[in-house]
C-alpha cells in the first residue's frame, strides 16, 4: 500500500527545488507563518553555519554555540508570526547574539576564564574607569554607534560591521571584501580607538 506522503514532505520537496538548493528568505518566513516545521530545516540549511560561527566567536565552544543556535531557532519559531522580518539573516543573527551574550555572562560568572576574542577586542573601545553603572543607557550607546558608523566611509563601516556584528574573522573579511588582512586589522584598530574617544566624550560606558 502506498504510503500517503505528508503535506510537509511534498512541500519540502517542491520548495527545496531552488537553483542553489536554498530558499529565499520570504519563502522561509512564510513557512514559519504557516507553522510548517520545514521552516526550521530550511533555516538551518541557509543560516546554520553562519549562526554557529557568530556564537562560537563569542563562546569559543562548539557545544555551547550549537545550543545557542538551537535556542535561536526556538526563539524565531516563537516570534513568527507576529514578526515578519525582511532580512531573515539579520533577524536571526540578532537573536543568536543576544542568546550567546547571556550564555557568555553565565559561563563567565561561573568560570572566569576562556575569553572571546571579539569581547577582548571590544574592551579596547571602553574608556578607562573602574565603576560599572547599574543603569546602562543602551539607547544612547546605540545612537552614538549609529552616528559613529554613519560618519565612516563605506569600507570602514563594512569592516567594522562584519567583524563586530556578523563576527566574521579577519581572513573571511579579507577574502570577501578584497582588502588585505593587514589593512583590515589597521582599520579595526583605528576605529576602536576612535569609538573609545567618542564614548569617553559622551560619558557612556
Amino acid at each position, binding site marked *: 500500500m502506498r504510503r500517503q506522503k505528508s503535506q510537509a514532505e511534498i512541500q519540502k520537496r517542491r520548495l527545496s527545488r531552488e537553483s542553489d538548493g536554498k530558499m529565499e528568505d520570504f519563502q522561509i518566513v512564510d513557512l514559519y507563518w504557516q507553522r510548517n516545521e520545514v521552516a526550521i530545516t530550511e533555516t538551518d540549511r541557509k543560516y546554520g553555519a553562519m549562526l554557529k560561527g557568530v556564537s562560537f566567536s*563569542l563562546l569559543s565552544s562548539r557545544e555551547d554555540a550549537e545550543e545557542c543556535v538551537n535556542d535561536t531557532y526556538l526563539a524565531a519559531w516563537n516570534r513568527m508570526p507576529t514578526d515578519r522580518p525582511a532580512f531573515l539573516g539579520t533577524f536571526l543573527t540578532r537573536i543568536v547574539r543576544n542568546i550567546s*551574550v547571556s550564555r557568555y555572562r553565565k559561563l563567565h560568572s561561573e568560570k572566569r576564564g576562556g575569553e572571546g576574542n571579539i569581547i577582548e577586542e571590544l574592551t579596547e573601545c571602553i574608556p578607562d574607569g573602574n565603576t560599572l553603572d547599574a543603569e546602562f543607557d543602551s539607547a544612547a550607546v546605540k545612537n552614538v554607534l549609529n552616528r559613529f558608523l554613519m560618519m565612516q566611509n563605506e569600507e570602514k563601516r563594512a569592516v567594522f560591521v562584519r567583524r563586530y556584528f556578523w563576527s566574521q574573522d579577519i581572513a573571511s573579511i579579507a577574502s570577501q*571584501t578584497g582588502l588585505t588582512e593587514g589593512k583590515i586589522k589597521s582599520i579595526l584598530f583605528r576605529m576602536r580607538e576612535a569609538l573609545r574617544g567618542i564614548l569617553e566624550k559622551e560619558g557612556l560606558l
Partner: protein
Amino acid sequence: MNRIKEEKALRLYEAIGELDQMMVNSALHYKKRSGISTAKLTVIIAACMAVFMAFAMVGAYMNGLFEPQVELDALETLLDEESGKEHRIDASDIDYFSGEAEIIWYDGENYYMKTLGKTSELSGLQTYVGQGEQVDSDENREYRVWISCGDGRVISPYLESSAGNVGYCELFDYDPEISPSDGFVNYIDGLLN
C-alpha cells in the same frame, strides 16, 4: 581581562546588535572596487592626452620640416617678391573683361594680382606665352600662375599653346607642362617694374 571592562564590552557588543538593519545588511555587500580610482584615472588620461598632443605637435612640425621643399622657379620667385598685401585679392572679384591684361598668381595660400597693361598693347605676351622647357608633373607644386587677358580669356604660362589650354572667365587648375622661358620671365619683370 578586567571584569568591569569585560562587562562593558559585552554591553557594547549588545548595542552593536541593535545597529540599523540597512547598514548591517549593506556591509555584507561591500567589495573593494578593483582597478584604480576615478581621480587617478582622470590624471592618467589627462597625462596621456598631453603626451599625445606633444607628439602630435612635434610630428606636425617635423612633417613641415621634412615636407619636400619645392624650389620656386624664376617666374615664381619674381612673383613671390610682389606678394605683398596690396596685391592680395579675392579670386571672385576678378573682372575678366577689364580690357587689361593681369597676371594672377596663387602661392598655396593667397591669390595676388597685378596689372600688366592694356591687352591690345601687349603683343610680346603672345610671343612668349606657351614657350618653355617641358617639365614633369609635380604634385607638390602649389604655385599657380594665370594671365587674364582682359577679354575673358585666361591662359597660363605653364601650359603649351593650344586651344585646349585656354580658359574663359575662371582660374582653372592645371598640371604644369612647361616651365616659362627666360624671355617670358624678363618680359613680365619689365611690365611689373
